[in-house]
Protein backbone atom coordinates (compact mmCIF):
# COMPACT_ATOMS: atom_id res chain seq x y z
CA UNK A 1 0.00 0.00 0.00
CA UNK A 2 1.26 3.49 -0.81
CA UNK A 3 0.44 6.82 0.85
CA UNK A 4 -2.21 7.70 -1.75
CA UNK A 5 -4.12 4.49 -1.13
CA UNK A 6 -3.78 5.04 2.60
CA UNK A 7 -5.28 8.48 2.18
CA UNK A 8 -8.18 7.06 0.16
CA UNK A 9 -8.99 4.47 2.80
CA UNK A 10 -8.50 6.74 5.80
CA UNK A 11 -12.19 7.68 6.38
CA UNK A 12 -13.32 4.06 5.91
CA UNK A 13 -10.75 2.81 8.39
CA UNK A 14 -11.36 5.58 10.87
CA UNK A 15 -15.04 4.70 11.03
CA UNK A 16 -14.56 0.96 10.57
CA UNK A 17 -16.37 0.81 7.25
CA UNK A 18 -13.72 -1.33 5.67
CA UNK A 19 -12.83 -4.98 5.17
CA UNK A 20 -10.55 -6.48 7.79
CA UNK A 21 -7.84 -7.13 5.21
CA UNK A 22 -7.82 -3.49 4.10
CA UNK A 23 -7.78 -2.32 7.68
CA UNK A 24 -4.77 -4.50 8.40
CA UNK A 25 -2.98 -3.08 5.38
CA UNK A 26 -3.71 0.45 6.45
CA UNK A 27 -2.52 -0.23 9.97
CA UNK A 28 0.68 -1.83 8.68
CA UNK A 29 1.29 1.11 6.39
CA UNK A 30 0.81 3.72 9.07
CA UNK A 31 3.19 1.81 11.32
CA UNK A 32 5.84 1.91 8.62
CA UNK A 33 5.24 5.45 7.29
CA UNK A 34 5.76 8.22 9.80
CA UNK A 35 3.88 10.90 7.84
CA UNK A 36 0.81 8.66 7.41
CA UNK A 37 1.02 7.67 11.06
CA UNK A 38 0.87 11.36 11.94
CA UNK A 39 -2.21 11.79 9.75
CA UNK A 40 -3.85 8.74 11.32
CA UNK A 41 -3.14 9.87 14.87
CA UNK A 42 -4.35 13.40 14.15
CA UNK A 43 -7.60 12.08 12.69
CA UNK A 44 -8.15 9.82 15.66
CA UNK A 45 -7.38 12.64 18.03
CA UNK A 46 -10.00 14.77 16.27
CA UNK A 47 -12.61 12.06 16.78
CA UNK A 48 -11.69 11.79 20.46
CA UNK A 49 -11.95 15.54 20.86
CA UNK A 50 -15.38 15.61 19.28
CA UNK A 51 -16.54 12.70 21.41
CA UNK A 52 -15.61 14.68 24.52
CA UNK A 53 -18.06 17.49 23.72
CA UNK A 54 -21.05 17.65 26.06
CA UNK A 55 -24.28 16.13 24.78
CA UNK A 56 -27.09 18.68 24.75
CA UNK A 57 -30.76 18.01 25.34
CA UNK A 58 -33.67 20.05 24.03
CA UNK A 59 -35.78 21.55 26.79
CA UNK A 60 -39.23 20.07 27.33
CA UNK A 61 -40.84 23.39 26.39
CA UNK A 62 -39.45 22.96 22.87
CA UNK A 63 -41.50 19.80 22.48
CA UNK A 64 -44.83 21.38 23.39
CA UNK A 65 -45.61 22.86 19.94
CA UNK A 66 -44.74 19.52 18.39
CA UNK A 67 -47.17 17.68 20.66
CA UNK A 68 -49.78 20.36 19.98
CA UNK A 69 -49.39 19.77 16.24
CA UNK A 70 -49.59 16.05 16.86
CA UNK A 71 -52.93 16.59 18.62
CA UNK A 72 -54.18 18.73 15.75
CA UNK A 73 -53.21 16.16 13.16
CA UNK A 74 -55.08 13.48 15.11
CA UNK A 75 -58.15 15.67 15.16
CA UNK A 76 -57.90 15.74 11.38
CA UNK A 77 -57.90 11.94 11.31
CA UNK A 78 -60.99 11.94 13.48
CA UNK A 79 -62.70 14.51 11.26
CA UNK A 80 -61.94 12.38 8.20
CA UNK A 81 -63.48 9.35 9.86
CA UNK A 82 -66.61 11.24 10.87
CA UNK A 83 -66.95 12.60 7.32
CA UNK A 84 -66.64 9.11 5.93
CA UNK A 85 -69.38 7.80 8.23
CA UNK A 86 -71.61 10.72 7.43
CA UNK A 87 -71.22 10.26 3.67
CA UNK A 88 -71.74 6.53 3.97
CA UNK A 89 -74.90 6.88 6.04
CA UNK A 90 -76.29 9.73 3.97
CA UNK A 91 -75.90 7.70 0.82
CA UNK A 92 -77.79 4.75 2.23
CA UNK A 93 -80.50 6.88 3.83
CA UNK A 94 -80.96 8.74 0.57
CA UNK A 95 -81.50 5.35 -1.04
CA UNK A 96 -84.23 4.59 1.49
CA UNK A 97 -82.22 2.06 3.38
CA UNK A 98 -82.28 3.23 6.98
CA UNK A 99 -81.59 -0.11 8.64
CA UNK A 100 -78.56 -1.00 6.47
CA UNK A 101 -77.28 2.56 7.02
CA UNK A 102 -77.37 2.17 10.79
CA UNK A 103 -75.88 -1.30 10.61
CA UNK A 104 -73.11 -0.09 8.29
CA UNK A 105 -72.19 2.80 10.54
CA UNK A 106 -72.08 0.49 13.55
CA UNK A 107 -69.88 -2.00 11.73
CA UNK A 108 -67.46 0.65 10.47
CA UNK A 109 -67.30 2.16 13.94
CA UNK A 110 -66.66 -1.20 15.57
CA UNK A 111 -63.91 -2.00 13.08
CA UNK A 112 -62.28 1.36 13.63
CA UNK A 113 -62.47 1.05 17.40
CA UNK A 114 -60.95 -2.41 17.27
CA UNK A 115 -58.11 -1.29 15.01
CA UNK A 116 -57.24 1.75 17.06
CA UNK A 117 -57.43 -0.08 20.36
CA UNK A 118 -54.86 -2.55 19.07
CA UNK A 119 -52.49 0.28 18.21
CA UNK A 120 -52.78 2.32 21.33
CA UNK A 121 -53.90 1.72 24.87
CA UNK A 122 -55.35 5.21 25.00
CA UNK A 123 -56.65 5.30 21.49
CA UNK A 124 -58.78 7.60 19.47
CA UNK A 125 -61.51 5.09 20.05
CA UNK A 126 -61.99 6.04 23.65
CA UNK A 127 -61.76 9.68 22.69
CA UNK A 128 -64.50 9.26 20.12
CA UNK A 129 -66.96 7.57 22.42
CA UNK A 130 -66.17 9.51 25.55
CA UNK A 131 -68.22 12.60 24.61
CA UNK A 132 -71.28 10.44 24.06
CA UNK A 133 -71.75 9.57 27.68
CA UNK A 134 -69.72 9.93 30.86
CA UNK A 135 -69.88 6.18 31.19
CA UNK A 136 -67.29 5.98 28.40
CA UNK A 137 -65.03 8.77 29.64
CA UNK A 138 -61.40 7.61 29.53
CA UNK A 139 -60.52 6.08 32.83
CA UNK A 140 -58.26 8.31 34.80
CA UNK A 141 -58.74 11.07 32.26
CA UNK A 142 -59.96 13.53 34.85
CA UNK A 143 -57.26 15.29 36.71
CA UNK A 144 -58.66 14.49 40.16
CA UNK A 145 -58.96 10.82 39.35
CA UNK A 146 -55.53 10.72 37.85
CA UNK A 147 -53.84 12.19 40.87
CA UNK A 148 -55.84 10.29 43.44
CA UNK A 149 -53.11 7.68 43.28
CA UNK A 150 -49.67 9.35 43.15
CA UNK A 151 -47.90 6.12 42.27
CA UNK A 152 -50.14 5.71 39.27
CA UNK A 153 -49.62 9.28 38.14
CA UNK A 154 -45.86 9.04 38.47
CA UNK A 155 -44.58 5.48 38.78
CA UNK A 156 -41.35 5.20 40.70
CA UNK A 157 -41.88 8.56 42.28
CA UNK A 158 -41.64 7.19 45.79
CA UNK A 159 -38.06 6.08 45.30
CA UNK A 160 -36.89 9.22 43.52
CA UNK A 161 -33.96 10.90 45.19
CA UNK A 162 -34.47 14.36 46.64
CA UNK A 163 -34.42 17.31 46.09
CA UNK A 164 -37.15 17.09 43.46
CA UNK A 165 -40.37 18.68 44.71
CA UNK A 166 -42.91 16.00 45.48
CA UNK A 167 -45.92 17.65 43.99
CA UNK A 168 -44.35 18.77 40.75
CA UNK A 169 -46.02 15.94 38.87
CA UNK A 170 -49.27 17.85 39.14
CA UNK A 171 -47.73 20.60 37.04
CA UNK A 172 -46.63 18.40 34.20
CA UNK A 173 -47.64 20.41 31.13
CA UNK A 174 -48.86 17.36 29.28
CA UNK A 175 -51.08 16.40 32.18
CA UNK A 176 -52.75 19.76 32.61
CA UNK A 177 -56.06 18.36 31.64
CA UNK A 178 -59.17 20.39 32.04
CA UNK A 179 -62.08 18.47 33.47
CA UNK A 180 -64.58 17.62 30.79
CA UNK A 181 -67.34 19.50 32.60
CA UNK A 182 -65.35 22.73 32.59
CA UNK A 183 -64.57 23.00 28.92
CA UNK A 184 -66.06 22.63 25.49
CA UNK A 185 -66.57 18.91 25.54
CA UNK A 186 -64.70 17.77 22.45
CA UNK A 187 -61.73 20.13 22.88
CA UNK A 188 -61.30 19.10 26.48
CA UNK A 189 -61.25 15.48 25.59
CA UNK A 190 -59.00 15.79 22.59
CA UNK A 191 -56.39 18.21 23.90
CA UNK A 192 -53.64 16.27 25.50
CA UNK A 193 -55.27 13.77 27.80
CA UNK A 194 -52.55 11.59 29.23
CA UNK A 195 -52.44 7.95 28.46
CA UNK A 196 -52.65 5.49 31.29
CA UNK A 197 -49.78 3.45 29.99
CA UNK A 198 -47.31 3.28 32.89
CA UNK A 199 -44.33 3.28 30.52
CA UNK A 200 -45.58 6.45 28.88
CA UNK A 201 -46.10 8.18 32.20
CA UNK A 202 -42.76 6.98 33.47
CA UNK A 203 -41.06 8.42 30.41
CA UNK A 204 -42.81 11.78 30.80
CA UNK A 205 -41.92 11.76 34.45
CA UNK A 206 -38.26 11.05 33.73
CA UNK A 207 -38.04 13.76 31.09
CA UNK A 208 -39.61 16.29 33.38
CA UNK A 209 -37.43 15.22 36.28
CA UNK A 210 -34.30 15.61 34.17
CA UNK A 211 -35.35 19.09 33.07
CA UNK A 212 -36.11 20.16 36.63
CA UNK A 213 -32.89 18.74 37.99
CA UNK A 214 -30.95 20.53 35.29
CA UNK A 215 -32.70 23.74 36.21
CA UNK A 216 -32.02 23.21 39.93
CA UNK A 217 -28.36 22.60 39.23
CA UNK A 218 -28.21 25.71 37.03
CA UNK A 219 -29.50 27.81 39.91
CA UNK A 220 -26.92 26.36 42.29
CA UNK A 221 -24.21 26.87 39.72
CA UNK A 222 -25.09 30.53 39.23
CA UNK A 223 -25.22 31.20 42.95
CA UNK A 224 -21.96 29.34 43.51
CA UNK A 225 -20.21 31.37 40.84
CA UNK A 226 -21.57 34.62 42.27
CA UNK A 227 -20.48 33.69 45.81
CA UNK A 228 -17.07 32.70 44.56
CA UNK A 229 -16.68 36.00 42.70
CA UNK A 230 -17.62 37.77 45.94
CA UNK A 231 -14.88 35.93 47.76
CA UNK A 232 -17.18 33.64 49.77
CA UNK A 233 -15.40 30.55 48.62
CA UNK A 234 -16.67 28.57 51.62
CA UNK A 235 -20.32 29.18 50.63
CA UNK A 236 -19.63 28.71 46.93
CA UNK A 237 -18.06 25.36 47.70
CA UNK A 238 -21.28 24.19 49.35
CA UNK A 239 -23.21 24.88 46.15
CA UNK A 240 -20.65 23.13 43.98
CA UNK A 241 -20.59 20.21 46.39
CA UNK A 242 -24.40 19.99 46.23
CA UNK A 243 -24.34 19.84 42.45
CA UNK A 244 -21.58 17.24 42.56
CA UNK A 245 -23.46 15.03 45.01
CA UNK A 246 -27.08 15.41 43.93
CA UNK A 247 -26.90 16.16 40.21
CA UNK A 248 -24.31 13.76 38.79
CA UNK A 249 -25.85 14.01 35.31
CA UNK A 250 -25.61 17.80 35.16
CA UNK A 251 -24.60 18.98 31.69
CA UNK A 252 -21.94 21.34 33.01
CA UNK A 253 -20.41 18.95 35.50
CA UNK A 254 -17.00 19.65 33.98
CA UNK A 255 -17.22 23.30 35.01
CA UNK A 256 -18.52 22.29 38.43
CA UNK A 257 -15.53 20.03 39.01
CA UNK A 258 -13.12 22.76 38.03
CA UNK A 259 -14.85 25.38 40.20
CA UNK A 260 -14.88 22.91 43.05
CA UNK A 261 -11.17 22.28 42.61
CA UNK A 262 -10.51 26.01 42.63
CA UNK A 263 -12.46 26.49 45.84
CA UNK A 264 -10.63 23.66 47.56
CA UNK A 265 -7.32 25.06 46.34
CA UNK A 266 -8.27 28.48 47.73
CA UNK A 267 -8.95 26.85 51.07
CA UNK A 268 -5.63 25.05 51.01
CA UNK A 269 -7.19 21.62 50.61
CA UNK A 270 -4.94 20.60 47.78
CA UNK A 271 -5.71 16.91 47.99
CA UNK A 272 -9.42 17.51 47.46
CA UNK A 273 -8.66 19.93 44.65
CA UNK A 274 -6.56 17.28 42.95
CA UNK A 275 -9.33 14.72 43.47
CA UNK A 276 -11.82 17.05 41.82
CA UNK A 277 -9.59 17.57 38.80
CA UNK A 278 -8.92 13.85 38.65
CA UNK A 279 -12.67 13.26 38.56
CA UNK A 280 -12.79 15.73 35.69
CA UNK A 281 -10.18 13.75 33.76
CA UNK A 282 -12.05 10.51 34.38
CA UNK A 283 -15.25 12.05 33.13
CA UNK A 284 -13.66 13.76 30.13
CA UNK A 285 -10.63 11.67 29.18
CA UNK A 286 -10.27 13.66 25.97
CA UNK A 287 -9.27 16.68 28.02
CA UNK A 288 -6.70 14.88 30.13
CA UNK A 289 -3.88 16.63 28.36
CA UNK A 290 -5.29 19.99 29.40
CA UNK A 291 -5.80 19.07 33.03
CA UNK A 292 -2.72 17.03 33.73
CA UNK A 293 -0.31 20.00 33.95
CA UNK A 294 -2.67 21.71 36.36
CA UNK A 295 -2.92 18.61 38.52
CA UNK A 296 0.87 18.35 38.61
CA UNK A 297 1.17 22.02 39.45
CA UNK A 298 -1.30 21.62 42.28
CA UNK A 299 0.50 18.59 43.63
CA UNK A 300 3.77 20.47 43.58
CA UNK A 301 2.32 23.60 45.13
CA UNK A 302 2.31 22.01 48.58
CA UNK A 303 5.31 19.72 48.94
CA UNK A 304 4.40 16.23 50.11
CA UNK A 305 0.73 17.19 50.46
CA UNK A 306 -0.28 14.67 47.88
CA UNK A 307 1.45 11.50 46.85
Amino acid at each position, binding site marked *: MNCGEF*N*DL*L*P*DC*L*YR*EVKTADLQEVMSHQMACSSCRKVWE*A*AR*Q*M*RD*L*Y*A*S*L*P*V*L*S*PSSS*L*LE*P*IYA*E*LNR*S*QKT*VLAGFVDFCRTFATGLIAGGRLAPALMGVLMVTATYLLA*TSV*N*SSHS*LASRIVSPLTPAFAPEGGLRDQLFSNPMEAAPGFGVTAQPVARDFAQNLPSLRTVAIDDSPLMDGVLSGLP*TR*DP*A*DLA*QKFEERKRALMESDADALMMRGRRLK*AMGRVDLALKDFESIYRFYPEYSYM*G*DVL*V*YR*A*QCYAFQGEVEKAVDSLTDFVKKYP*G*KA*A*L*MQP*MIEELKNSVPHAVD
Partner: protein
Amino acid sequence: MDYQAAKDEDLMLAYKEGDRRAFEALLSRHKQSVYNYLYRFLHKPEIVDEAFQEVFLRVLKYASTYTPTAKFTTWLFTIIRNFCIDLSRRGKFRNMKSLDQPAMDEEGATLGDKLADERPGPAEIIAGQTLAEKLQRALDVINPDQKEVFLLRETQGLAFEEIASVVDVSVNTVKSRMRYALTALQEELKKMGITDR
Protein backbone atom coordinates in the same frame (compact mmCIF):
# COMPACT_ATOMS: atom_id res chain seq x y z
CA MET B 1 -46.53 -2.78 19.37
CA ASP B 2 -43.31 -2.71 21.38
CA TYR B 3 -42.41 0.93 20.91
CA GLN B 4 -39.01 0.62 22.53
CA ALA B 5 -37.85 -2.21 20.31
CA ALA B 6 -39.61 -1.27 17.07
CA LYS B 7 -37.53 -0.07 14.13
CA ASP B 8 -37.77 3.59 13.14
CA GLU B 9 -39.36 2.69 9.83
CA ASP B 10 -42.08 0.60 11.50
CA LEU B 11 -42.81 3.39 13.96
CA MET B 12 -43.16 5.88 11.13
CA LEU B 13 -45.52 3.58 9.26
CA ALA B 14 -47.53 3.06 12.45
CA TYR B 15 -47.80 6.81 12.86
CA LYS B 16 -49.05 7.09 9.30
CA GLU B 17 -51.78 4.64 10.32
CA GLY B 18 -52.76 6.99 13.14
CA ASP B 19 -50.74 5.63 16.05
CA ARG B 20 -49.77 8.70 17.99
CA ARG B 21 -47.50 6.86 20.38
CA ALA B 22 -45.35 5.67 17.50
CA PHE B 23 -44.49 9.28 16.71
CA GLU B 24 -43.83 10.01 20.37
CA ALA B 25 -41.40 7.10 20.42
CA LEU B 26 -39.64 8.43 17.33
CA LEU B 27 -39.43 11.90 18.81
CA SER B 28 -38.08 10.56 22.06
CA ARG B 29 -35.51 8.47 20.19
CA HIS B 30 -34.18 11.17 17.90
CA LYS B 31 -34.73 14.47 19.67
CA GLN B 32 -31.32 14.56 21.29
CA SER B 33 -29.31 13.68 18.21
CA VAL B 34 -31.26 16.13 16.05
CA TYR B 35 -30.83 18.88 18.62
CA ASN B 36 -27.11 18.24 18.91
CA TYR B 37 -26.68 18.20 15.15
CA LEU B 38 -28.54 21.48 14.75
CA TYR B 39 -26.66 23.04 17.63
CA ARG B 40 -23.29 22.10 16.21
CA PHE B 41 -24.26 23.01 12.67
CA LEU B 42 -26.03 26.32 13.27
CA HIS B 43 -24.42 27.21 16.60
CA LYS B 44 -26.94 29.93 17.37
CA PRO B 45 -29.20 28.95 20.26
CA GLU B 46 -32.10 31.18 19.27
CA ILE B 47 -32.18 29.62 15.79
CA VAL B 48 -31.43 26.12 16.97
CA ASP B 49 -34.59 26.00 19.10
CA GLU B 50 -36.75 27.20 16.24
CA ALA B 51 -35.04 24.85 13.81
CA PHE B 52 -35.56 21.89 16.12
CA GLN B 53 -39.29 22.52 16.34
CA GLU B 54 -39.63 23.23 12.64
CA VAL B 55 -37.86 20.00 11.71
CA PHE B 56 -40.26 17.84 13.71
CA LEU B 57 -43.25 19.85 12.54
CA ARG B 58 -42.12 19.10 9.00
CA VAL B 59 -41.82 15.43 9.88
CA LEU B 60 -45.47 15.54 10.98
CA LYS B 61 -46.47 17.50 7.91
CA TYR B 62 -44.77 15.20 5.43
CA ALA B 63 -45.43 11.94 7.29
CA SER B 64 -48.08 10.98 4.77
CA THR B 65 -45.45 11.04 2.00
CA TYR B 66 -43.03 8.78 3.84
CA THR B 67 -42.24 5.45 2.22
CA PRO B 68 -39.78 3.05 3.79
CA THR B 69 -37.54 2.82 0.74
CA ALA B 70 -34.66 4.25 2.72
CA LYS B 71 -33.80 4.36 6.39
CA PHE B 72 -35.87 6.74 8.48
CA THR B 73 -32.75 8.62 9.56
CA THR B 74 -31.88 9.30 5.93
CA TRP B 75 -35.34 10.76 5.38
CA LEU B 76 -35.18 12.72 8.63
CA PHE B 77 -31.80 14.25 7.87
CA THR B 78 -32.85 15.09 4.36
CA ILE B 79 -35.62 17.15 5.94
CA ILE B 80 -33.11 18.74 8.31
CA ARG B 81 -30.74 19.51 5.48
CA ASN B 82 -33.48 21.06 3.37
CA PHE B 83 -34.53 23.15 6.31
CA CYS B 84 -30.96 24.38 6.84
CA ILE B 85 -30.75 25.26 3.15
CA ASP B 86 -34.04 27.19 3.42
CA LEU B 87 -32.68 28.98 6.44
CA SER B 88 -29.52 29.83 4.61
CA ARG B 89 -31.48 31.13 1.59
CA ARG B 90 -33.61 33.32 3.80
CA GLY B 91 -30.33 34.60 5.19
CA LYS B 92 -31.90 34.45 8.58
CA PHE B 93 -28.99 33.16 10.50
CA ARG B 94 -26.48 35.16 8.53
CA ASN B 95 -28.09 38.46 9.33
CA MET B 96 -27.41 38.04 13.00
CA LYS B 97 -24.06 38.98 14.33
CA SER B 98 -22.26 36.04 15.79
CA LEU B 99 -20.38 36.48 19.00
CA ASP B 100 -17.72 34.35 17.34
CA GLN B 101 -17.22 36.60 14.37
CA PRO B 102 -13.97 38.56 14.35
CA ALA B 103 -14.10 42.03 15.82
CA MET B 104 -12.97 44.57 13.27
CA ASP B 105 -10.50 46.46 15.39
CA GLU B 106 -8.61 43.70 17.13
CA GLU B 107 -6.70 41.00 15.42
CA GLY B 108 -7.80 37.56 16.58
CA ALA B 109 -10.41 38.90 18.99
CA THR B 110 -14.09 38.15 18.49
CA LEU B 111 -17.22 40.10 19.22
CA GLY B 112 -17.84 37.65 22.04
CA ASP B 113 -14.44 38.46 23.52
CA LYS B 114 -15.35 42.12 23.57
CA LEU B 115 -18.78 41.62 25.09
CA ALA B 116 -17.98 38.83 27.46
CA ASP B 117 -17.55 39.18 31.19
CA GLU B 118 -13.93 40.06 31.68
CA ARG B 119 -13.58 37.88 34.74
CA PRO B 120 -12.04 34.61 33.68
CA GLY B 121 -13.99 31.42 34.26
CA PRO B 122 -12.33 28.33 35.64
CA ALA B 123 -11.65 26.86 32.24
CA GLU B 124 -9.98 30.06 31.11
CA ILE B 125 -7.82 30.11 34.20
CA ILE B 126 -6.65 26.60 33.70
CA ALA B 127 -6.51 26.09 30.01
CA GLY B 128 -7.69 29.15 28.19
CA GLN B 129 -11.06 28.55 26.62
CA THR B 130 -12.74 25.21 26.99
CA LEU B 131 -12.02 22.63 24.42
CA ALA B 132 -15.69 22.52 23.47
CA GLU B 133 -15.69 26.20 22.62
CA LYS B 134 -12.57 25.91 20.57
CA LEU B 135 -13.80 22.90 18.68
CA GLN B 136 -17.12 24.61 18.05
CA ARG B 137 -15.25 27.65 16.82
CA ALA B 138 -13.21 25.49 14.48
CA LEU B 139 -16.44 23.90 13.19
CA ASP B 140 -17.84 27.35 12.50
CA VAL B 141 -14.84 28.23 10.40
CA ILE B 142 -14.51 25.22 8.12
CA ASN B 143 -16.34 24.77 4.83
CA PRO B 144 -20.08 24.11 5.48
CA ASP B 145 -20.16 21.11 3.11
CA GLN B 146 -17.29 19.51 5.00
CA LYS B 147 -18.82 20.39 8.35
CA GLU B 148 -22.11 18.83 7.28
CA VAL B 149 -20.48 15.53 6.41
CA PHE B 150 -18.39 15.53 9.58
CA LEU B 151 -21.41 16.20 11.81
CA LEU B 152 -23.67 13.70 10.08
CA ARG B 153 -21.01 11.10 10.66
CA GLU B 154 -19.96 12.06 14.18
CA THR B 155 -23.24 13.25 15.66
CA GLN B 156 -25.59 10.84 13.93
CA GLY B 157 -23.32 7.96 13.12
CA LEU B 158 -24.71 7.81 9.58
CA ALA B 159 -22.75 5.55 7.25
CA PHE B 160 -20.99 7.24 4.32
CA GLU B 161 -23.55 5.79 1.94
CA GLU B 162 -26.43 7.24 3.95
CA ILE B 163 -24.69 10.59 4.10
CA ALA B 164 -24.31 10.44 0.33
CA SER B 165 -28.10 9.96 0.03
CA VAL B 166 -28.84 12.84 2.38
CA VAL B 167 -26.35 15.23 0.79
CA ASP B 168 -27.07 13.95 -2.71
CA VAL B 169 -23.47 13.46 -3.82
CA SER B 170 -21.39 10.35 -4.47
CA VAL B 171 -19.93 8.28 -1.66
CA ASN B 172 -16.43 9.19 -2.82
CA THR B 173 -17.26 12.87 -2.57
CA VAL B 174 -18.52 12.31 0.96
CA LYS B 175 -15.31 10.58 1.96
CA SER B 176 -13.28 13.28 0.34
CA ARG B 177 -15.19 15.94 2.26
CA MET B 178 -14.63 14.00 5.44
CA ARG B 179 -10.87 13.96 4.84
CA TYR B 180 -10.85 17.68 4.18
CA ALA B 181 -13.01 18.31 7.24
CA LEU B 182 -10.61 16.40 9.49
CA THR B 183 -7.62 18.24 8.08
CA ALA B 184 -9.31 21.63 8.29
CA LEU B 185 -10.39 21.06 11.89
CA GLN B 186 -6.89 20.00 12.84
CA GLU B 187 -5.48 23.12 11.22
CA GLU B 188 -7.91 25.37 13.03
CA LEU B 189 -7.30 23.73 16.38
CA LYS B 190 -3.58 23.86 15.80
CA LYS B 191 -3.90 27.61 15.37
CA MET B 192 -5.59 27.68 18.76
CA GLY B 193 -2.87 25.56 20.29
CA ILE B 194 -4.98 22.48 20.93
CA THR B 195 -3.76 19.62 18.75
CA ASP B 196 -0.38 18.50 17.52
CA ARG B 197 0.80 17.65 20.99
